[in-house]
């Protein structure tokens, strides 16, 4: 196993290389630009065999990946902030067509250069799986796991994974690079199941007719293909009586729910093979006997571990829940945790204007049905790239502990 000190962008490039992607759509945007530059070098010197497309904009990047994936390519692209919101239109397409495209996002605020999570959060309703990484090693590992999750038969959904811009993307850390052969054993080649070959057209239509006739008054998928919506030659009669327009949303939601189990399995298998795992949907740090937990995502979680250690040394019963999977949201994990703690402090490096912290509100919703509900507090920090210091996280932890002791809330939401 090779080890190298490298910036997060290079770790992402390595993960795409090891995952044997063969279609890369490239467009520059700070702070992910060097991801596609590294990849272009890998392709130029033969380390990756891929179609490398220098596109003219992010939405094209996503569409190229989408179409390539339909045609059987293992597709990859990367973007950040404004590039991601430009891509929004196409993100819906990739997710709705159930295509296992993987995208790295060097998290950058939608309105600023500095890192925060508003870019990926803004896409939370597109139906993509969203994972967050706290260091460059995790970025590389997640980049490989992402394909295994996406291409799983139970899932077949695109995966985006975030690494904080600049803080990870342009900061060097030591990273272990798995062996190609070991990754090949872990991740078999991608097989598209979509009807794309002209010579099969007639047989597929005949097949489809039988399914259509059967489905006349049954609200079920009309075809055996998970993304028939993209194939006009198969959907032309989909609007007949008996057709339930809602079924695609429902089945997409079901796939998202199934993905929870798949993410856990893949993480566990990765741990067995490569010696590193990340807890599945969440990673609980020193939560065993905690009365209070704080919840963080991305690099804030990494800082928070130090804060937790410091406070534990003082005997305070506090732990960290690092949220790795934001979509699908680990409701069950928070229900479980909510039963054992009195107070949760949620660190949101994001905001949904008009409502508030996104993870904050999601956790409040997750614990709503518990008989004894923990208090849930929200904190905004790190937005627009504002620096997150150790003392900021300690301050948050102390406040949350204070609330736990007093058993009452002064302010629910605080801006750090």
């Amino acid at each position: 196993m090779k080890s190298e000190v490298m910036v997060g962008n290079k770790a992402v490039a390595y993960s795409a290389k090891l995952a044997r992607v063969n279609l890369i759509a490239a467009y520059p945007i700070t702070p992910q630009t060097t991801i596609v530059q590294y990849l272009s070098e890998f392709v130029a010197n033969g380390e990756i065999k891929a179609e490398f497309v220098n596109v003219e904009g992010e939405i094209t990047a996503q569409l190229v990946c989408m179409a390539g994936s339909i045609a059987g390519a293992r597709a990859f692209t990367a973007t950040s902030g404004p590039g991601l919101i430009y891509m929004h239109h196409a993100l819906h397409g990739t997710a709705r067509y159930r295509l296992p495209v993987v995208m790295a996002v060097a998290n950058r605020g939608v309105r600023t250069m500095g890192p925060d999570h508003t870019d990926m959060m803004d896409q939370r309703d597109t139906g993509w799986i969203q994972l967050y990484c706290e260091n460059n090693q995790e970025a590389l590992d997640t980049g490989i796991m992402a394909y295994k999750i996406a291409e799983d038969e139970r899932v077949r959904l695109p995966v985006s994974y975030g690494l904080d811009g600049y803080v990870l993307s342009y900061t060097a850390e030591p990273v272990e690079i798995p062996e190609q052969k070991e990754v090949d054993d872990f991740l078999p080649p991608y097989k598209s199941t979509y009807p794309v070959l002209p010579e099969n057209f007639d047989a597929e239509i005949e097949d489809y007719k039988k399914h259509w006739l059967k489905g006349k008054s049954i609200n079920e998928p009309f075809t055996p293909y998970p993304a028939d919506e993209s194939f006009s030659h198969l959907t032309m009669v989909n609007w007949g009586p008996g057709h339930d327009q809602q079924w695609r949303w429902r089945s997409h939601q079901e796939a998202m729910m199934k993905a929870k189990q798949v993410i856990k399995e893949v993480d566990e298998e990765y741990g067995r093979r490569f010696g590193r795992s990340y807890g599945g949907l969440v990673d609980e740090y020193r939560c065993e006997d905690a009365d209070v937990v704080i919840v963080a995502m991305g690099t804030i979680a990494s800082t928070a571990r130090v804060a937790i250690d410091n406070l534990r040394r003082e005997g305070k019963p506090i732990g960290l829940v690092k949220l790795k999977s934001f979509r699908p949201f680990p409701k069950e994990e928070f229900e479980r945790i909510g039963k054992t703690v009195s107070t949760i402090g949620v660190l949101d490096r994001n905001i949904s204007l008009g409502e508030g912290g996104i993870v904050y509100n999601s956790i409040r919703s997750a614990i709503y049905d518990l008989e004894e509900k923990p208090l849930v507090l929200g904190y905004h920090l790190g937005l627009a790239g504002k620096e997150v210091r150790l003392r900021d996280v300690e301050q948050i932890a102390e406040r949350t502990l204070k609330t736990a002791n007093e058993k009452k809330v002064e302010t629910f939401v605080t801006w750090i």
Partner: protein
Amino acid sequence: MESLEETIKEEFPERILKSNIMAMRKAYDGVSELMDAKNLPKKKDIKIESQEPLISYSRNVADWRVFRPVIDKNICVNCQRCWIYCPETAITMVEGKADVNYSYCKGCGICSEECPVEAIKMELEEE
């Protein structure tokens, strides 16, 4: 088959009932075995066989006609203009004469307009 017929009777209005049931039967009979797509020959020349168009399962465009083209085969000189100008292949040349497929002809009248020898007349469709 009976339950399929029942469902069709429930869903569709009387006048297209017969053609839809016929279409369904034809499709069902036409599939003699399930073909495994993976075993299909790869790059062979594709032959067009007369398979029932998929559109007939959900729409009857022939219903749109107000006028129908009637071809006088004695006048037809096999120039093939009506065939090439029909927007949807509803006209074929059969033994050197133009022939209209009334199951799909929408009655647009292009064939009649383009025929150089006035072999095609548009006649009012009877109800």
